[in-house]
């Protein structure tokens, strides 16, 4: 099955206003930056960006452009704000969150990971001990007060657990080290992070790959994400990241 698309532009052409897109990456590591830049060019609006651990802080230039273009409706993340409060005050994204123009919905990181894992594996919801006793137990944690829906809890074997729901984004943008023509992907070191679970959870998974190889050149024992989860692939140059966040 050939899943190679000729350009990023064509690979994202069908994304419509209002879509939810999963953005992997752990701060600056493993972020699909070329796809984000293409999304900025395309100008799609009203987007929900479903993240895991601050990929948009790692891709700060792209976050700024998406914010200033008015493309973002909502971000879901465990770590969506700049660490430094004073830097945050200067940041257009945080300003938009403070003004209620962009919604920021927050979950613990392990809950984010499990939301995608469950979404990709046909599990609609799950009970987790994470967050018991905190505001995470009481309601959805969001800057938009009207959206703070209460959460359900349940005692199991004498311990309290929170019910959290699976997340199934419309698209996932993936950054992989290597992909073969069957769509099998392999990630580099800690750049794997949220890439695999997000690829499994989305309806349409679009991968930017640094190396594109023939079927058979990527050893089946070394595949991290099997091709069934990957719908479109585009070869991109190896990006350059600054390994810092503020």
């Amino acid at each position, binding site marked *: 099955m050939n899943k190679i698309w000729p350009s990023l532009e064509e690979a994202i052409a069908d994304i419509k206003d209002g879509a939810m897109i999963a953005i992997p990456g752990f701060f600056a*590591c493993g972020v699909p930056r070329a796809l984000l830049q293409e999304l900025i060019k395309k100008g799609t609006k009203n987007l929900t960006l479903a993240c895991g651990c601050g990929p948009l802080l*790692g891709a700060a230039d792209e976050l700024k452009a998406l914010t200033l273009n008015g493309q973002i409706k909502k971000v879901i993340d465990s770590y969506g704000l700049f660490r430094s409060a004073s830097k945050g005050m200067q940041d257009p994204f945080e300003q938009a969150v403070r003004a209620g123009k962009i919604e920021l919905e927050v979950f613990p990181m392990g809950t984010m990971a499990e939301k995608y894992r469950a979404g990709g594996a046909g599990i609609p919801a799950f009970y*987790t001990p994470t967050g018991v006793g*905190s505001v995470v137990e009481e309601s959805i944690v969001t*800057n938009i007060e009207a959206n703070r829906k209460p959460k359900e809890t349940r005692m199991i074997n004498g311990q309290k657990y929170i019910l959290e729901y699976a997340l199934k984004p419309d698209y996932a943008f993936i950054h992989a080290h290597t992909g073969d023509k069957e769509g099998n992907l392999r990630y580099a070191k*800690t750049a*794997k*992070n949220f890439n695999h679970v997000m690829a499994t959870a989305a309806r349409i998974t679009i991968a930017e790959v640094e190396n594109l190889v023939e079927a058979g050149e990527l050893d089946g024992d070394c595949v991290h994400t099997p091709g069934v989860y990957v719908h479109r692939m585009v070869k991109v140059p190896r990006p350059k990241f600054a390994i810092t966040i503020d």
Partner: protein
Amino acid sequence: MSPKVKFEGLPREMIALRVSREIKEGSYVNLGIGIPTLVSNWIEGIDVCLQSEIGMLKTGPLADGDNVDQDLINASCQAVTALPGSAYFDISESFGMIRGGHIDVAVMGALQVNVSGDYAGWSNPSRGLFVGNIGGSMDLCAGARKLFIAMEHITKDGDYKIVKELSYPATAVGKVNMLFTDLAVIEITPKGMVLKEVVAGLTPKDIQSVTEPKLIIDPKCKEMEL
């Protein structure tokens, strides 16, 4: 609430050194941002495996120069190195091993700790936002077998950080086992906070004067050895 006095305490590196002494050979350990990260400087030569929630076991020392690899960072977004026997895995595997009780010790920073072992760290209300950066902290509290807090004993403004009741949003309730500060080592037990060690030059009475809840002085309370 503020204590009336302020004492010269240990530098952050020395708090980290004291924490490292409490980590046993053969432990799987996760270090949070801040003072906890510095613990990694003191465990060379001990057979301890650092887990990084980004998806790595046996996280090596910080990388510099030609060793920097943009595909290899720790959970504090610092370039790191691998060691012989390092392993990488995806994020759901990483948090599965955290929630599943496979990590022996988590060391975290904190804004406040109370007498019941509750702690606050993910959101500082002075920022004026209901939302904040939770990251992996709540998962580590839920799943690690032991939770150590490493922090300054009082705030820069001189307010209590060891309090009767949290005034900041909780990260976890009833999970803190040990508290390491620039002034003291305190164990949190069902009976309350037990003062185990005091930094050289200070007395248990001094520590009580900068600690809001009433401390139980361990009969074997001693000077902190570094």
